[in-house]
């Protein structure tokens, strides 16, 4: 991970807040990856049906969407200037990915 936070215009932040927030996004993406892997395992379990494969592919797409959201936010937090707060749309998009994954899970489990 690059350390672009040391800009000459800004005092050093002793709490490393942007760095910690970047790592929190990484942890969350990792948790999402585990959930997506379990989703694909469920979709392929016991002979893959066409509908099972479609839902599994949708789970992968949702995981990619979450990864993209996390990368965008991490890039914003890496910039040297004072980081802007998270936007409500960004937070809602991340939550909608999670909810959609849960809906896919419900379809796969039944």
């Amino acid at each position, binding site marked *: 991970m690059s350390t672009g936070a040391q800009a000459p215009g800004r005092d050093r932040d002793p709490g490393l*807040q942007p760095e910690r927030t970047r790592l929190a996004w990484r942890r969350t993406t990792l*948790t999402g990856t585990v959930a997506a892997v379990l989703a694909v395992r469920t979709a392929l379990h016991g002979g893959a049906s066409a509908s099972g494969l479609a839902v599994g592919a949708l789970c992968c797409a949702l995981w990619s969407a979450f990864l993209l959201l996390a990368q965008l936010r991490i890039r914003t937090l890496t910039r040297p200037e004072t980081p802007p*707060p*998270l936007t409500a749309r960004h937070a809602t998009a991340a*939550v909608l990915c999670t909810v959609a994954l849960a809906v896919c*899970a419900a379809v796969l489990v039944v």
Partner: protein
Amino acid sequence: MGKVPRVIGFVRNIRLWFAPEEIREEGSTPDYRFSLANERTFLAWLRTALALIGGGFAVDQFLPDLRWGWRVGLAFALLAAGVLCSLRAVNHWVRCERAMRRGEDLPGSRFPAVLSLAVAVVAVAMIVLVFAGWAG
């Protein structure tokens, strides 16, 4: 605080999830470190939600000897908890962000207690079912 006003408040907040401008117009911008701390709390709740959803998959995959009804029931309980947890994560984030802008106290919540009780109930049910499966 009654149940009905809280549901109404939740529905009102949904508007704010999609309209960041409305939050930004209120009060004054807090120290960016507070906003980032709020963001990390939001992410921690989102991780909890993702872990609950993963738990739902795990019940389905790793307890194949359970009867269909129990297996699907437990998986659905965990998935529903995950959905509630993620929706509550963004709602709580919006409320905290607004409270910080207005300089108010941060909102309290019964949700952590409710979630812990729900997880405890599901865990006990799973232990009982697995042991009953071994015995029978």
